[in-house]
C-alpha cells in the first residue's frame, strides 16, 4: 500500500514536471505568446480555486457560494501587504492566504450548522458583505481599484508550482484519516458523529483549508492582474468556480483540474459567441445534471468503451 502510494505520487510529479517543461519550452520557443501565457496563468489560478472549493463542496458536501469572497480577502490582503509593508511577494501571499483562512473559520463557525440551500444563501450573503466592505474601505481604494503592488520578478513558474502544491495538499488531506472523516460527513452526518468523528471540527477544518487556498488564488490573481476592483469578486465569480467543480464532478480532484482548465481556455475560443457564453454554461450544466440524475454516465461509457463492471455476488 505504501509503495503504491509513493509510486502514484512520483508518477504524478513526473507528469507535472513534464507538463511544466513542455510549457516552458513552448514559451521560450515563442509558440506560446504573451496572450496565451496569460491564459495559462489564469488556468493555474482557476485550478487552485476549483480544487480548493471541491474540498468544501465535493468532499465535505457543503454547497457554498462564497469562494470568491475568500479569494478577494486573499487578494486584497496580499496586495496591501506588498503595497504598504513592502513585504516580499511570497510572504504577502502567505499572509493573504492566512487572512482568508481566518475569515473562513470565522464564517464557518456560525454557518456550518446550516445545510443545503440555507448554507448556499448565507455564504452568498457573506460573499456580498465582503465585496461591499472592500468597496467602501478607503484603504482598498473602493471602486477605483487598488494598484501598484506588483512584484516584477514573478513568472509562470510561481503560478504553476502553486497549483501543483494545492492539488498535492488537497490530495493528501483526502487520503488521510482526516479526509475520510470529511468524506464520511458528506455521506451521512449522523452516522459519522456516531462513529466518533468530531463533525464540527472537521467541517471547519475543510472549510478553512478551502478558504486558505482560495486566498492563495486571490493573491496570485492580484499579482497577475496588477489591479484589484471589488466587482471582480462578485457572485458571478463564485458561481463560475462552482460550475467548474460541478462539471468536473463533486469529490473528483482530476475532474476539477480538467474542468478548470477547459473552462478557462474554452471561453477564449468562444469569444465570437461571447454573448452566448453564459447560455452555453447553463446548457452544459443542465446536461451534466441530467446525465448524473438519470445515471446515464455508465450507459454512455459502456457504449463508447467496453469496460467491465464489478458485480458483487452474495
Amino acid at each position, binding site marked *: *500500500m505504501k509503495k503504491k502510494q509513493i509510486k502514484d*505520487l512520483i508518477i504524478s510529479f513526473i507528469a507535472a514536471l513534464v507538463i511544466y517543461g513542455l510549457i516552458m519550452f513552448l514559451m521560450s520557443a515563442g509558440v506560446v505568446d504573451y496572450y496565451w501565457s496569460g491564459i495559462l496563468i489564469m488556468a493555474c489560478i482557476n485550478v487552485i480555486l476549483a480544487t480548493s472549493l471541491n474540498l468544501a463542496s465535493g468532499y465535505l458536501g457543503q454547497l457554498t457560494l462564497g469562494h470568491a469572497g475568500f479569494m478577494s480577502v486573499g487578494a486584497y490582503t496580499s496586495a496591501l501587504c506588498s503595497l504598504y509593508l513592502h513585504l516580499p511577494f511570497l510572504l504577502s501571499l502567505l499572509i493573504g492566504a492566512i487572512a482568508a483562512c481566518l475569515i473562513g473559520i470565522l464564517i464557518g463557525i456560525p454557518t456550518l450548522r446550516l445545510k443545503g440551500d440555507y448554507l448556499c444563501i448565507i455564504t452568498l450573503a457573506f460573499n456580498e458583505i465582503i465585496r461591499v466592505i472592500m468597496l467602501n474601505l478607503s484603504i482598498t481604494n473602493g471602486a477605483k481599484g487598488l494598484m501598484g503592488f506588483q512584484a516584477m520578478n514573478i513568472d509562470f513558474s510561481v503560478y504553476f508550482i502553486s497549483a501543483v502544491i494545492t492539488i498535492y*495538499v488537497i490530495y493528501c488531506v483526502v487520503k488521510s*484519516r482526516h479526509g475520510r472523516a470529511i468524506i464520511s460527513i458528506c455521506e451521512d452526518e449522523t452516522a459519522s458523529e456516531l*462513529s*466518533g*468523528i468530531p463533525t464540527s471540527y472537521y467541517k471547519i477544518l475543510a472549510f478553512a483549508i478551502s478558504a486558505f487556498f482560495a486566498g492563495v488564488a486571490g493573491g496570485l490573481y492580484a499579482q497577475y492582474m496588477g489591479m484589484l476592483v471589488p466587482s471582480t469578486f462578485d457572485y458571478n465569480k463564485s458561481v463560475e468556480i462552482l460550475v467548474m467543480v460541478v462539471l468536473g464532478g463533486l469529490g473528483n480532484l482530476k475532474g476539477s483540474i480538467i474542468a478548470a482548465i477547459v473552462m478557462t481556455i474554452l471561453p477564449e475560443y468562444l469569444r465570437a459567441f461571447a454573448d452566448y457564453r453564459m447560455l452555453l454554461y447553463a446548457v452544459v450544466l443542465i446536461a451534466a445534471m441530467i446525465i448524473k440524475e438519470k445515471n446515464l454516465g455508465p450507459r454512455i461509457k459502456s457504449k463508447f468503451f467496453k469496460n467491465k463492471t464489478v458485480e458483487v455476488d452474495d
Partner: protein
Amino acid sequence: MSLLKAEGLGIQFGGLKAVDEFNFEMNQNQLYGLIGPNGAGKTTVFNLLTGVYKPTSGQIIFNGKSLLKMTPTQITQLGIARTFQNIRLFKKMSVIDNVKVGLHHSQNYSLLSSILHLPSYFKGEEAMHEMAMSLLRVFDLEKYADVKAGNLPYGKQRKLEIARALATSPKLLLLDEPAAGMNPIETEELMETIKIVREKFSIAILLIEHDMKLVMGICEKIAVLNFGTVLAFGTPDEIKNNPDVIAAYLGNEE
C-alpha cells in the same frame, strides 16, 4: 459498578411522552435484549443513550460518568457504539474505508504529517489498515474490502455496520434491529456473529429485535418496553410467561 445505568429517563416531544421513567442497568459483557410493540420507544431509548436526543428528565450514567451534557461524538469516544434500524453506511466509500472511519481515533497522526508523508503517517495508515482488515475478517468481509459499501448485499451491509461500530472500540454495543429484513438463514448467521463478537471483544451488547427466536435464543435478560416505560424485565423464560407482556403484544382477553 454497573456499566450503564439509566434512572428515570424520559423524553417528551410536545405533549407526547415517548419514553417515561425508563430504568435500566447493565454490567460488563452482558447481552441484553430490548423488545416491545411498535412505537414503544425502543429506538428512542437508543437515541437517548447515544446523545442523538437530549432527555427531558432522568439521568444516564455510563462507566461512572453522566452522559447528559455530552455530544454523540463524545459518547461514542467514551465507549458506546451503535448500528441503525435503517442501515446508515457511508455508501459511496469502500467497505474498508467505512471501518477506517470508525477507527479514526485509533491513530493520531496529524494532518501535517500526512501532507509531508512523514513516517508517522505511513505507520498510522498501515496500522489502521491492519486493524480494519482483521475486523473485516471477523465478519467474513475481507474479500469485499475495496467494494463500495452501497453495492454490498443487504445482509453484508448489516455486518459491515456492526464492524464499523466495533471499530470505535466500544464497551457497549447497541444493535437496532440487526435482523430486520433478513431471511432465517441470515438471521441464524447473525446470531452466531453476535455471540462471536461478544466473546472476542468482551463487550456488553444491548439489542432491539422483533425476531423472537433471536432474542430468546441469545439474550440473557430482556426488557420489555411499552408506551415508553419498562413493562417487564427478566430472563427469556420469565418474559415468555409474563401475562403483562402477552397482553401488551396480543391484547387482553376481556
